[in-house]
Each structure stands twice: as C-alpha cells, then as structure tokens.
C-alpha cells in the first residue's frame, strides 16, 4: 500500500486526498540526488522490512490525521532507482495551509526515523555503501564494492 516498486505519481497521490473542502495541499517529494557525502551517486537501491514498513507508514498517517485536520497520502519507492527518480512522496490536504504544511513536514521526518527502509548507494568510482545517517560521513565507513 505504501511501498511501491513502480515510479511514484504525485498527481495520483494528490487526487487521493484532495477534496472540495480541502483547499490547501502541501506535498514533499524526495528525489535521488547525484551526490552524497561528497561522492557522485549513479543510483541506489532501497530495501525494506516490508510488513513493518507498511505498518509503520499506516501508523504515521493515522497519527498525522489525528494530530491535524488533514488527509495524508504517503508513498515510498523500493528497489533500484536512478538519479532523478522520486524516492518518497508525502501529500497533506487540509482546509488551511498551516496544518497542511505542518502535517506534511511531520510525516516526512517521521518516515526517516520510524520506517524500516535502507538505502545502498552506487558511486561513480564503482564502490557502493549503505547510507547510515548515524555515521559521521552519512554512509557506513566500510562501503564494500560487493
């Protein structure tokens, strides 16, 4: 439901939460960038603990929709991605822009800390590394080229 093998489509996500009484639609799209931690990124692959990830995403959406008067759509790509591909998309629709922005921003932050998804980056020099936000360099030190 939240994890997608196929490209994310923002208009579809927006349509899923838009309605005549919700005129403020805030959205966030995280796109694969061409560099990370000082290295040129060619592409990456997301892996997930599927059942827990789906369950956590559902819990985050439910929490946002009770914290703010919003409807939230969330989608995360898994599998191989190229630079420029959308990796995650969050849409929050509300009657007013304040709750829409606040909920949208809260959800993307929560996805990063709550949803069991991992990212292995491929670099131009042929090496690869697991992204590790807790590591100083942002990637796990011993990036192996397996």
């Amino acid at each position: 439901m939240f994890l997608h093998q196929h490209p994310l489509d923002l208009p579809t996500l927006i349509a899923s939460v838009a309605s005549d009484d919700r005129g403020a639609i805030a959205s966030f799209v995280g796109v694969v960038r061409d560099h990370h931690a000082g290295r040129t990124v060619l592409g990456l692959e997301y892996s997930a603990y599927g059942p827990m990830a789906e369950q956590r995403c559902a819990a985050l959406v439910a929490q946002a929709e009770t914290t703010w008067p919003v409807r939230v759509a969330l989608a995360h790509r898994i599998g191989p991605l190229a630079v420029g591909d959308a990796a995650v998309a969050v849409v929050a629709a509300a009657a007013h822009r304040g709750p829409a922005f606040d909920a949208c921003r809260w959800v993307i932050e929560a996805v990063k800390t709550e949803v069991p998804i991992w990212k292995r980056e491929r670099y131009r020099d042929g090496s690869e590394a697991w992204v590790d936000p807790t590591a100083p360099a942002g990637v796990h030190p011993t990036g192996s080229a397996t």
Partner: protein
Amino acid sequence: MTTRTVLLFARYAELLGAASVEVEIAAGATIADLVAALRALPGGASLPANPVVAVAHAKADAATVIPEHAELALLPPLAGG
C-alpha cells in the same frame, strides 16, 4: 532454551551472510540476551553493541523480555525518505 529466528536486513544481512538466522535463547531472555547471541554468530562481532531490534514490528528496548511468538528483526540505522 528455545530457537528463535531473527530477520536480518541491509548491512546486517551482509555481515551475517543471510536474510535470517536462528539463535538459541533461554526462556524469559531479553533483547540484550538476543543481541549477545547474535554477536556470537560468525560475522556477528561486527554488529554494533546496541543494534535496534524490532519485536512484532515495533522497536524494543534492550531490557524488553522477548515474547514467545513475536517476529524478531535486527534493524540497521534507518535510511528511508
């Protein structure tokens, strides 16, 4: 002692060379005990001292006693979004 399966992901799966492993833990064992057992496996020494463990799809503290029938998983630092 009971045999428990622990699901592995990303870097930890690489370290232990598998998508899941079996470990023996005593009845009433805690997450800390489970981690100790995992670190004793081949490649397990490279695991951090306090890796995040999910019990039935929720992160658990080291002191949590492991329920009998909950799915267990070892989670490397998350990197979604």
